[in-house]
């Protein structure tokens, strides 16, 4: 939508009942947005480093994506085309709630098509289709601190990042290998960004980790409850922690295909059929799956 049109629509709404009366464009007050914008710029300037910020309360609960939402609301434009997914799915609980809210307070158009979106907010997945330099992916983060696994104290993890003292993280991975023969971390696989900071990519599966490396798009990470923002700019190195003889591996879907669209190269959800107890697989990225099905059956 052009800004001109949005302004006209706004003028109309002011005469009618606004759905959320009295709230400004983008819901949050300007002070909140400005702080978030300042934090985002610093996060982009220091890839992989967690910028602390004030983090306002949102009408959805902490733990349900307030960090991602605050980022989205601080940078959304009325002419944006917004896609929101949760576990890859456009129709999921969390995604629907967030989508409705942003559309109400920012007037954006909603889409399920990754290619058509200018702004995508996501929980725990990166879309299968490669995103461009004109798009932004905002990820919801429950645990921003990759080192929390080995150290509960924030003061101490801040020191570890400051001094790039990551020996305990490497030790943790080594102990995993000794115990299980493999690194057992599944989602939240730790990565080194720009050769400097160890970062938690949020609970995306291993499958999605390679998408962060030398991408064309900007990734913004928002942890509302923990009050941290971090970023990976495009064309930035993102390397999963691994050993020479125990390399990083994604999940294994060999021999499996999506029962809806037949894809053999996407992250698949495993579903157990109620009646037969049979195992079936479906693309986690529902928008992509829909597209493929349409392509076959236009």
């Amino acid at each position, binding site marked *: 939508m052009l800004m001109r049109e949005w302004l006209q629509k706004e003028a109309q709404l002011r005469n009618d009942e606004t759905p959320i009366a009295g709230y400004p464009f983008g819901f949050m007050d300007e002070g909140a947005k*400005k702080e978030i914008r300042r*934090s985002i710029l610093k996060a982009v300037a220091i890839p992989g480093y967690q910028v*602390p910020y004030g983090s306002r309360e949102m009408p959805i609960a902490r733990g349900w994506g307030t960090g991602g939402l605050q980022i989205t609301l601080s940078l959304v*434009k009325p002419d944006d085309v917004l896609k929101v997914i949760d576990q890859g799915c456009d129709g999921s609980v969390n995604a629907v709630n967030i989508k409705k809210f942003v559309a109400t307070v920012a007037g954006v158009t909603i889409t399920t098509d990754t290619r058509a979106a200018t702004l995508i907010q996501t929980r725990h997945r990166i879309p299968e289709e490669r995103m461009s*330099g004109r798009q932004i992916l905002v990820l919801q983060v429950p645990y921003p601190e990759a080192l929390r696994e080995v150290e509960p104290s924030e003061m101490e993890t801040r020191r570890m990042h*400051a001094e790039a003292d990551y020996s305990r993280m490497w030790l943790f991975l080594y102990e995993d290998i000794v115990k299980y023969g493999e690194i057992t971390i599944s989602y939240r696989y730790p990565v080194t960004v720009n050769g400097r900071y160890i970062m938690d990519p949020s609970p995306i599966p291993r499958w999605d980790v390679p998408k962060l490396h030398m991408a064309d798009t900007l990734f913004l990470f928002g942890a509302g409850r923990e009050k941290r923002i971090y970023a990976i700019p495009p064309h930035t190195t993102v390397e999963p922690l691994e050993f020479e003889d125990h390399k990083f591996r994604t999940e294994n879907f060999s021999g499996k295909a999506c029962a809806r669209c037949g894809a053999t190269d996407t992250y698949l959800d495993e579903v157990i059929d109620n009646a037969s107890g049979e195992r079936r697989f479906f693309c986690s990225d529902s928008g992509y799956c829909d597209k493929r099905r349409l392509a076959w059956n236009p």
Partner: protein
Amino acid sequence: MHIHRTIRDHFTFRVLLQGMSHPGRVFPLPGLPGEGSAAVELLGCLMDNEVGFAVIGDRDMEREIARHTDSRPVSLEDADFIIAQHGTTMGRLAHFRRGSLEYPDTGATVLYLVEVLSETAGVVLSGPGIDGTTSLRISGLDPGEWQLFREVNSEFPLGVDAIFLDRSGNIACIPRSSRIGVNERWDMLR
């Protein structure tokens, strides 16, 4: 109108974010009708009474920024934002906050007001946000700033991040993560 300003800030910030995540590339600001100069419109989407700023330039600019953003004029060493009104920090870039190892984000942001920005032969940049290398030419920037900038950002993650705004309302950014090289046109800048 209050509502226009809010939306304008959203459009402005998107361009700024594009600039900071693609260092060295030149982007036009939205150029929406506003209340003040382009510099003030740009800073207005970021600054408020929570931050301090300093101007290396004239008093009028300082007053305009204070009035428009509600931010506090402070010393150069304490400032979150420094505006180099005439394309130079007069050698004082080294005094700006570079942050600490625990909190490198507290390093300052400097806005240089310059003449012309163009993606042609100039300084060569590489690093996060840049596909290989990119070239940025800035006329109206004091050539001495490049060396200072390199020094101030030589101990990543400490450092200062730069935004450039030219007379036509274009911006470019160079965050502290960028590596600034030289090419054979270096002499032209001197």
